[in-house]
């Protein structure tokens, strides 16, 4: 599903962000990415959703290689992925329903498909009753659930979560994590970058620790995932 092969990422101003990173994530896996701030966790996620390209090495996502990826292929690749962030990134002047539906609208899906799908997704994340609310009217945990519902709109093969619980209290964190586990249970691979080591320890999921742009620890066997 995800395969990093000897990936190096160098930023012109800040220098090496990732160095010789190799790992794989298989279909339906749940993987934590841990490490201190600036260690390279977010860079790995950005390379996966093609917000960045590797300086050297290869990133392969669902049979799409960074070596042959063209600018126009990026949109299609992103429709196979779902991404959630610490700051939710919702359109604050649109309702919860519109925010989730937006991810389907960009694919050209007709309204007859969008409406029931959005209703189903909002039910899945427990926000069916808030469909007409605006994001600022929701709690942090609820906003993150909206972001997760939006990320799931196009049935992604991988859900990427960059510090999704970073802005949430403990209860909301548990709720969001539980939701991510449920999604993973349906067969969607989840890759979650987090600082919350307690959360990592409490779960039995694989974790990859990054430091100074290198993998220092991987509880998985580091064998190539299903590509």
């Amino acid at each position: 599903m995800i395969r990093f092969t000897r990936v190096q990422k160098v930023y012109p101003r800040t220098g090496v962000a990732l160095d010789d990173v190799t790992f794989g994530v298989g279909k339906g896996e749940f993987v934590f990415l841990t490490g201190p701030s600036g260690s390279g966790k977010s860079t790995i996620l950005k390379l996966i959703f093609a917000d960045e390209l590797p300086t050297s090495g290869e990133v392969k996502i669902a049979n799409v290689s960074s070596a042959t990826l063209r600018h126009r292929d990026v949109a299609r690749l992103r429709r196979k992925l779902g991404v959630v962030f610490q700051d939710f990134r919702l359109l604050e002047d649109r309702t919860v329903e519109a925010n989730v539906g937006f991810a389907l609208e960009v694919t050209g899906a007709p309204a007859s498909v969008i409406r029931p799908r959005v209703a189903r997704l909002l039910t899945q994340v427990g926000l069916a009753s808030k469909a007409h609310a605006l994001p600022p009217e929701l709690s942090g945990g609820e906003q993150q659930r909206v972001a997760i519902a939006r990320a799931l709109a196009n049935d992604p093969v991988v859900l990427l979560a960059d510090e999704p619980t970073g802005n949430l209290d403990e209860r909301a964190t548990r709720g969001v994590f539980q939701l991510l586990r449920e999604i993973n249970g349906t067969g969607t691979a989840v890759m979650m970058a987090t600082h919350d080591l307690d959360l990592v320890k409490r779960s039995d999921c694989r974790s990859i620790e990054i430091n100074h742009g290198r993998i220092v620890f991987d509880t998985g066997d580091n064998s190539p995932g299903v590509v």
Partner: protein
Amino acid sequence: MTLATREALLAFRRAPMLSALSVTTIAFSLFAFGLFGLVALNIREALSKLEDRVEIRAFVGDGTAIESSAAALGDIQAFPEVATAALGDIQAFPEVATAALVTPTQALERARSELGEFSDVFDAGILPASIDVRLKPGFRDPASVRAVAARIRSYEFIEDVRFGEEWVEKLYQIRNVATIAGTVLGLTFALVAVIIIGSTIRMAVLARAREISIMRLVGATDSFVRRPFLIEGALKGAMGGTVALFLTWATNEIIGRVVFSAEFFDVRLSVAGIFAGALIGLVGSAVSVGRHLKSV
């Protein structure tokens, strides 16, 4: 209604102040251009009216008895056959709009009516007959006038050809200066308008940078992101163009009442102005969004 159109229209509701600012900026940029256009139009009209007066007058020699008697009788049919045939020739010149025979009697009447209180200074028979030639627009420059005059002069019975060479030269110079100045000023005004409008639209694009990044994040293609901005830009441009047209019309009306009556754009030019606004808005948006999409 397509998603792109809906998004474009919603942008006006979501950011009414910024949208109003954009439309106002576009309107005033185009208003300045419109005022310039109005001045240019009126100068062109005035010069065109002056150019209408460019005329070649070929005086028919009075060496033949037939001609003299015909002139005395004021009978155009009695002109020498050769002159009548030549008139047909001259009328067939590609540069010639009209060519008319003026008998001595007609010439005398014309001179008297033009001179008013001095109408009695001429005696019958002192003015020669002539062929008065007016040229088509586009052939009123000194070279064309001179060429036609030379061809008319080549007829044996033509004694003299006059066309106010100095006046034609001066008029042509004024027209050239007006055309060059008009083109340079027009392009400058248009460029300034495009830069101002482009900056305004870029501001609108930057204000929605977050929205654009979210659109791309969920898999929107560049063309999908671009479409609502293009529609929005074209709409703002058309609205700005309409406001500018109204302001230009109002200014023209005020000048008409206070100073002098001036020509205004015809319907075709007015519609073209609104379309130009829409086009500038469209191109400005395309450039701004394109640059933004490349930079993120």
